[in-house]
């Protein structure tokens, strides 16, 4: 654990998971459930950018902007067309919402595969300056961008939730949709804002992370699980908690394969999930755990 380059890699990974977890967090705070389609949103962001550049010869920035717009649109559609009607009909039961987001996840994967093709495409780097060397560590532009953007999005989200009216409304609505509706708060609008913001953060994360290992239409499921695990490990007590969880998972993702071989991180993830879910079922997630 002394190789600083590996640590940098872990931090970058952690920032990516942290951003995914932030997207989960925003929807969880605003709508009270976990949107498993976060990973596919990120995949959409990364894959759509590359595809636009390859197919239509677009510049990096217009392509990224389009991809973000598409993803935000998908996120809004998820809430407006799927989650809201399903939750309305099922009366707040958890299983229908879960099945609905599973269907959304699957549909986005298939859509991306159909439109963009199934092979893995390389990611596009938004920044093109020379790698920075700090001591014995070489920081790639894409890594630097990932870390900076992740920290920025957390800082902005924290600021937004704490000090703006909409941010505080988000928490009020998330705590109890019904009470918020009784108080005359704009529940539907706030929920939509949460989904749109989450889609934005996820798309950004996907675009920034894609240069590291490429992206294909099936990357989304693993990303969904990593982000979910990060938000559970970190907890939902504070805006910064998902980043903490993300960092922990980043360490697991980088150091386990380094010491124990290629697939070790999969076992590590399962172990972390089991340990956290089984040994600490109270506290962080009382609301969703059956007594």
């Amino acid at each position, binding site marked *: 654990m002394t190789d600083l380059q590996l640590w940098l890699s872990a931090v970058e990974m952690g920032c990516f998971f942290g951003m995914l977890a932030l997207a989960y967090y925003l929807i969880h705070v605003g709508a009270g*459930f*976990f949107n*498993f389609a976060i990973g596919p949103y990120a995949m959409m962001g990364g894959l759509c950018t590359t595809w636009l550049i390859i197919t239509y010869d677009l510049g990096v920035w217009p392509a990224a902007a389009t991809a973000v717009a598409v993803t935000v649109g998908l996120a809004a559609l998820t809430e407006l*067309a*799927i989650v809201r*009607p*399903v939750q309305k*009909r099922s009366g707040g039961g*958890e*299983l229908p919402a*879960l*099945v*609905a987001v*599973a*269907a*959304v*996840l*699957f*549909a986005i*994967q*298939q*859509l991306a*595969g*159909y439109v963009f093709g199934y092979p893995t495409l390389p990611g596009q780097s938004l920044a093109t300056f020379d790698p920075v060397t700090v001591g014995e560590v070489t920081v790639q532009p894409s890594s630097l961008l990932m870390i900076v953007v992740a920290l920025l999005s957390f800082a902005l989200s924290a600021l937004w939730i704490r000090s703006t009216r909409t941010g505080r409304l988000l928490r009020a609505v998330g705590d109890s949709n019904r009470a918020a509706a009784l108080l005359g708060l704009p529940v539907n609008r706030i929920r939509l804002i949460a989904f749109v913001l989450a889609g934005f953060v996820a798309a950004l994360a996907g675009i920034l992370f894609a240069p590291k290992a490429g992206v294909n239409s099936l990357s989304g*499921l*693993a990303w969904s*699980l990593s982000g*979910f*695990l990060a938000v*559970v490990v970190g907890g939902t007590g504070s805006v910064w908690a998902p980043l903490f969880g993300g960092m922990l998972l980043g360490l697991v993702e980088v150091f386990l394969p380094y010491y124990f*071989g290629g*697939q070790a991180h*999969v*076992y590590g*993830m*399962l172990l972390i*999930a*089991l340990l956290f*879910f*089984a040994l600490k*079922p109270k506290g962080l*997630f009382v609301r*969703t*755990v*059956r007594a």
Partner: protein
Amino acid sequence: MTAQTSQPAAATAGWDIRDIRRVPGIGGFALGCAAAVLILLWVGSDGYKQTLVTSAATYALIALGMYVPYLMAGSLSMAYSAYAGIGGYAVGLISTKTGLPLAVAWLVGPIVAALLAVLLGLVTRRLSGFFLAAVTLLFGMAFTAFLIDAEALSGGSGGLGNLRPLNLFGWTPSHYQVVLGSAVIVCVIAFLLDRLRLSPWGVIVRTMRDAPRAVEAAGVRVPVLNLLALALGAAIAAVGGGLFTYSAGSITPDTFTLNIVFLAIFMPLIGGAGTPWGAVAGAVIAVELTLNFPAIQTSGTLLLALGVLVIMLVAPRGVVGYADKLRTRTWALLRKEPDRG
């Protein structure tokens, strides 16, 4: 739930053997068998269509395996790719590494899968909803990783091939007989699950989904019931996995992917969640769309995914549910009774 109200509650009292119409679930069984016969007639000796039938049977068995914990007990466990994989590897391992009769695989596979389901169920007993789904998905992924890693046991990413044919007391079924057999197994298991759904045990399990505290307060141990449901489901999925492996002649870590688990969640939605036959109907439709749709083959799965979203929004009862509604309406019209459906 329409099917339940339209049938006499004879499950507790036992049934009169002379009046077969009073056997609960017999209507669905008859219809299911009729559909199976029609499908088998359509298939004939076409090798590709026979493969479609075994695929549909496998999908149906995995979906039926998920039926008890997912639709009756209301907890979505997604480790079914692992359970089907265990069934498949049981066939592969017994065929290539032992001299035991191959039929033993269908005994060992489901038992091992059920034990693993109980173990996973014990570890995750406090979880539900999103947490359970996430852990079980991770478990499915870890199982695939394990299959690739454990080369000495599972043959690594190459998997196991060259399986020997089944030999039941000197009789070796032909390929068509295997296809026939898989259709029969699906029909029998769907029928038994339908009976189970209507039995007192099934009623308790379904009540547990809606009001776990009430069931617990009535003296039924909810965790034990959950474990039983999971074990039963895993065993059924393992039967399907074994069946597929046998008819395909090989198995690799990629044979049962998480894709199949997602499809298996959607099958009851497509077919109708009210009865196990809905899962079977959904499996047939899913195979038809994903594997046998030459016009827009690559987009069959996309079509299915979008179809599921539409069905979820506008037709929550699924194909069988609406067919059943139509049936009761028609009966009511024929008998000139007021419609109760």
